[in-house]
C-alpha cells in the first residue's frame, strides 16, 4: 500500500531526468503506471477476505496520525484511478505529440505527483490524512490546469485554486477540526464515529460543512472551477477532471457519509434531506446548462457536474442501495466520461475542432472515435448495453427505499436531459450531411496511441454492463 504511494513519486525524478529523451520519459511513465495498477490489483484479494491492513506514516498530532488503511471503497477508487492513469498515459503520448504541446516533461512529472496524491486519498485511514492528500492533489494539478501559460489559463487557475483551496480550508478543515473535538478521533470507522456526540442540529451543520467543503465534488454553487479547468490539455481534463480530482471529491463525501456519520445517523439528519435537494438541483441545473454549451469540453464539464450530483445524492441517501449505486457510479461514470474526453481530444488533434456545431458529418472522417462517443454517451445516460445502467439502477432503488419519489423523478428527468445534450453529437456526426471541411477526404483518425486508449475505455463501458459482478461485490463490501 505504501508502495502504491511511492511508485508514482519515484517516477517523478526519473521523468525529469529523462527530459531530453521523450521515448525514455514516456516509458518511465508507462512502466510506473503498469506497476502501480499491478500493485493495486494485488491488494484486492485481502480486502475481499475482510483484511484491513494499516500503515502509519507519521504522527503530526498526538493521537491523530497520518495513516493509510485499506478498505473496499478506497480500493475501488484506487483501482479505477490507477487503471485509467495507465490508459491516459498511452493516450497522452499520442495527444501531446500530435498536438505538439510545450513543457511535456513538466506535464508528466506533475501528473505522477497528482496520481500519488490520488492514491493517498484513496487509502487514507482518517479524515486528516485524506485532507492532506486532498490538498496535495489540488496543488499538484494547478500547474497542469495552467499548462498553456496563457492569460486564460491563468484566470482559470485562479478560479481553480481559489474555489478548491478556499472551500477546503474554510469549510472542510473546520469540519475536520470540529469532528476531532467532538469525537476525539477522525478515523474512518464502519458505522461512523459521530453518532450521539452532539445534537442533531450541530451534526447537520457539520455535514453541510463537509459536503460544501469538498469543493472537488462540484456541488453547486461551488462548481465554477470545473468548467474553468477545462483550459487544460485534454488528457488532464480526462483523467483529472473526469476521474481523479472530481472522483476524489465525491469519494470523500462517500467516505464521510459511510465512515464518519454512518448510515444510521445520516438517515435521521434533517440537514441530509436538504443537501439531497441541493444535489438534485445540481443534477438538473448542470444538465440544463450543459445543453446550452457549444464548446464540447464545456458541455462535458457541465455533464460531469451533473453526474457528480448523482454520486453525492447516493452518498447522502446513505441506504444500502444508495451507497452501492454511488460507488458503482464512480466507476461507470469514470469510464464513460474519460472516453468522451478522449474523443473530444482526438477530434481536436485530428481536425482542430472544439465546437459541437462544427461536428456535423464528422462520423465519416472519424468513425471509430464517434462510435466510441456514442457508446460512452449511452453509458452516461444509463442505457444498456453499458455499465451506466447498473449504477443508475441502484441509485434509483436507493431513492425508492428512502421514499423520495421526487428525487426519483429528478433522476429520470436528468437522464432525458442527458439524452438531449449527448446523443445528438454522435447522431449528427453520422447522419447529418457533412458541413464545412468535413466533406473532404476519407477517414482521418487521431494518432494511434490515442485511438487505442479510446477503444480500451469504450470496451470498459461495455464490460461493466456484462460483468458488473466484481464491481458490485466490492461495492457491497463498503462499510463492513
Amino acid at each position, binding site marked *: 500500500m505504501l508502495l502504491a504511494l511511492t511508485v508514482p513519486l519515484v517516477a517523478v525524478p526519473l521523468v525529469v531526468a529523462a527530459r531530453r529523451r521523450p521515448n525514455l520519459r514516456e516509458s518511465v511513465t508507462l512502466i510506473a503506471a503498469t506497476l502501480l495498477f499491478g500493485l493495486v490489483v494485488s491488494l484486492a484479494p485481502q480486502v475481499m477476505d475482510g483484511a484491513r491492513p494499516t500503515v502509519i506514516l*507519521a504522527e503530526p498530532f498526538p493521537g491523530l496520525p497520518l495513516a493509510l488503511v485499506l478498505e473496499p471503497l478506497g480500493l475501488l477508487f484506487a483501482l479505477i484511478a490507477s487503471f485509467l492513469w495507465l490508459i491516459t498515459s498511452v493516450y497522452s503520448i499520442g495527444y501531446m505529440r500530435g498536438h505538439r504541446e510545450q513543457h511535456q516533461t513538466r506535464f508528466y512529472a506533475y501528473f505522477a505527483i497528482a496520481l500519488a496524491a490520488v492514491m493517498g486519498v484513496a487509502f487514507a485511514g482518517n479524515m486528516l490524512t485524506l485532507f492532506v492528500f486532498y490538498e496535495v492533489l489540488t*496543488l499538484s494539478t494547478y500547474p497542469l490546469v*495552467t499548462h498553456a501559460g496563457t492569460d486564460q489559463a*491563468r484566470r482559470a487557475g*485562479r478560479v481553480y485554486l*481559489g474555489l478548491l*483551496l478556499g472551500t477546503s480550508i*474554510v469549510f472542510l*478543515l473546520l469540519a475536520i477540526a470540529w469532528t476531532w473535538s467532538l469525537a476525539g478521533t477522525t478515523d474512518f470507522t464502519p458505522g461512523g464515529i459521530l453518532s450521539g456526540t452532539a445534537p442533531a442540529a450541530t451534526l447537520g451543520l457539520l455535514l453541510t460543512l463537509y459536503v460544501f467543503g469538498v469543493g472537488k465534488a462540484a456541488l453547486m454553487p461551488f462548481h465554477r472551477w470545473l468548467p474553468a479547468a477545462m483550459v487544460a490539455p485534454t488528457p488532464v481534463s480526462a483523467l483529472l477532471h473526469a476521474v481523479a480530482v472530481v472522483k476524489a471529491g465525491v469519494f470523500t463525501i462517500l467516505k464521510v457519509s459511510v465512515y464518519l456519520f454512518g448510515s444510521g445517523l445520516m438517515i435521521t439528519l434533517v440537514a441530509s434531506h436538504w443537501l439531497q435537494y441541493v444535489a438534485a438541483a445540481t443534477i438538473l441545473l448542470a444538465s440544463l446548462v450543459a445543453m446550452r454549451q457549444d464548446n464540447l469540453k464545456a458541455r462535458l464539464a457541465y455533464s460531469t457536474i451533473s453526474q457528480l450530483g448523482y454520486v453525492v445524492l447516493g452518498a447522502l441517501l446513505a441506504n444500502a442501495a444508495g451507497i452501492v449505486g454511488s460507488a458503482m457510479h464512480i466507476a461507470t461514470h469514470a469510464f464513460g466520461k474519460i472516453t468522451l474526453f478522449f474523443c473530444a481530444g482526438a477530434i481536436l488533434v485530428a481536425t482542430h475542432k472544439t465546437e459541437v456545431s462544427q461536428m456535423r458529418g464528422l462520423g465519416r472522417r472519424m468513425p471509430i472515435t464517434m462510435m466510441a462517443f456514442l457508446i460512452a454517451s449511452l453509458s452516461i445516460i444509463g442505457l444498456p448495453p453499458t455499465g451506466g445502467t447498473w449504477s443508475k439502477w441502484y441509485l434509483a432503488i436507493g431513492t425508492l427505499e428512502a421514499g423520495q419519489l421526487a428525487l426519483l423523478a429528478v433522476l429520470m428527468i436528468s437522464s432525458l436531459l442527458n439524452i438531449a445534450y449527448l446523443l445528438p453529437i454522435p447522431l449528427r456526426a453520422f447522419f447529418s450531411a457533412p458541413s464545412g471541411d468535413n466533406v473532404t477526404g476519407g477517414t482521418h483518425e487521431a494518432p494511434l496511441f490515442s485511438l487505442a486508449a479510446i477503444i480500451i475505455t469504450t470496451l470498459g463501458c461495455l464490460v461493466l454492463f456484462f460483468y458488473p459482478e466484481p464491481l458490485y461485490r466490492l461495492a457491497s463490501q463498503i462499510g463492513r
Partner: protein
Amino acid sequence: MQLGQHLPVLQVVIPLLSAPLCLLLRNGRLAWMFTLAVSWLVLAGAVWLLLQVLAHGTVSYALGAWPAPWGIEYHVDHVSAFVLLIVSGISAVVLPFAGISVAREIPADRVSLFYTLYLLCLTGLLGIVITGDAFNLFVFLEISALSSYALISQGRDRRALTASYHYLILGTIGATFILIGVGLLYMMTGTLNMQDIAVRLPAVTDTRTVRTAFAFLIVGISLKLALFPLHLWLPNAYTYAPSVVTAFLAATATKVGVYVLLRFVFTIFGAAFAFQVMSLGPILLVLALLAIFSASTVAIFQDNLKRMLAYSSVAQIGYMVLGISFASLTGLTAGILHLFNHALMKGALFLALGAVFYQLGTVQLTQLRGLGRRMPWTMAAIVIGGLSLVGVPLTVGFISKWYLILAALESGWWPVAVLVLLGSLLAMVYVGRLVETAYFHAPPEDDREVREAPLSLLLPIWILILANLYFGIDTSLTVGVARQAAALLLGVSP
C-alpha cells in the same frame, strides 16, 4: 565548577563580549566569520539548555552568586528555552547567508561595525528571554532595540533612515511605558525578581497602581511586538532594512516581544488577574482579529514584496496573540507553537527575497516577472514558504492553524475559527499574486542576464524551507515543548 553550570549566563556573555572584539577586526570577512562562530556557539548552548530543561526542569542561575531576590537571577524554563532556541537557531541560519549579502549591501568600511551591532542585537534578544529580572529585561530590551535601530538604518535606500527614526521614536515610547510599568510594580512589591513579584503581587492586586502598571506594560509590549494598531513602525522598518536584518528581526524580534507579553501576563500577573480582573482576553482577541484582517488585506495591495511580507508579519502576530487571548492550554500552545513556526516561514521567505534582491537589486513585484524560470530554486522556496504561510498541510503553517482552530472550538467560539480560516484565504491571495507574476508573466524587456543565486544564499534558504516541511510532519519537538511551556505558564499539568 562545571562549564555547564554557567551555561545560562554564557548565552549572554559570549555575544556581549564578542561585540567589542568584532569591532577590532577591521576586515569585514573576518568579522563575519567571527560572528558566525559566535552564533553557532550560542546555538549549541541553547540546544544544551533546552535539553537540560526538558530533562531536569527549570534552570536557575544567580548572577555573581548573589541569591535570587537580591541579585539578578537568570531563569530558564520551557518557554524561555524554546524562544532561545528560535532566536539562536534563526541567527545561526541567517549568518551564513549574510556573508555575501552584507558584503554587497553594506559599504566595506562599515561591515565590521555592522556585525558588532548584530552581535549586540543578538545579546539583547537572548538576554530578554533568559533573564528572570524585570528591570534587567528592560535593559536588554534597550540593547536590542538600540542596536536594531542602527541596523535598520544601514539599508541602502535612504528611506531606511526615516524608517529607523520612526521606529526609534515609537520603540522608545514602548520602552518607556514598559519602564513605567516595571517601576510601578517595584513600588508596590519592592522587588524586581519576576518570581518574587508574582508571589507578592496578589496581596496588592486590588490597587489602582497595579492596574495602571498592567495597562502601561501591555501597551508598551504591544508596541514592541507590533500588535495592531501599534504596528505602524514595522512595515517601513522591515522594507528598507538590509535583507539580512529584515530576515533576522522578522523571525526573532517580534517573537521575543510576544515572549515578553507571555512572561508579564502569565508569570508575573497571572492568568486570573489578567483575564478575569482586567479582561485582557476580549481586548487581545479583537485586536488580533483586526490585525489578521486589516494587515492581510493591506498586504494584498503591496507592490514591494518586503513590505508585503512585513504586513503579513503583522497579520501573523495577530495569530499568535489570538492563541494567547484564549488563555487556554490549547490556545497558548497554538500561540507559542506559532512563534516557532512563523520564525521558520518568515525567516525563509525574507531570506529568499534577500537572494532575489542580491540578484536583481530590487524586490518590486513587477520586476519579478518570469523569475520562476530564471531563479527556479529561489522561487520554489518562495512558493513553499508561501504555502506554509497560507497553512497548507505538510507545512508548519498547517500545524499552527490546526491548534488555533481547535483552541477556538474548545472555547466554543466557532465564529473565531471561521475567521481564522478566512484570514488564511487572504494569505492565499497575496501569495498567489506573487506566484502568478513569477511564473506566468514574460520577463521584462530590458533583459539583463539574471541567474540563480549562489549556493551560499540558497543553502540557508533551503535549510529553513526543509525545516518548514519537517516540522510540519514531525511535531513531537515543537508541539511537545510548546505544550509544556503553555502548561507551565498556566500552572496546570500538560
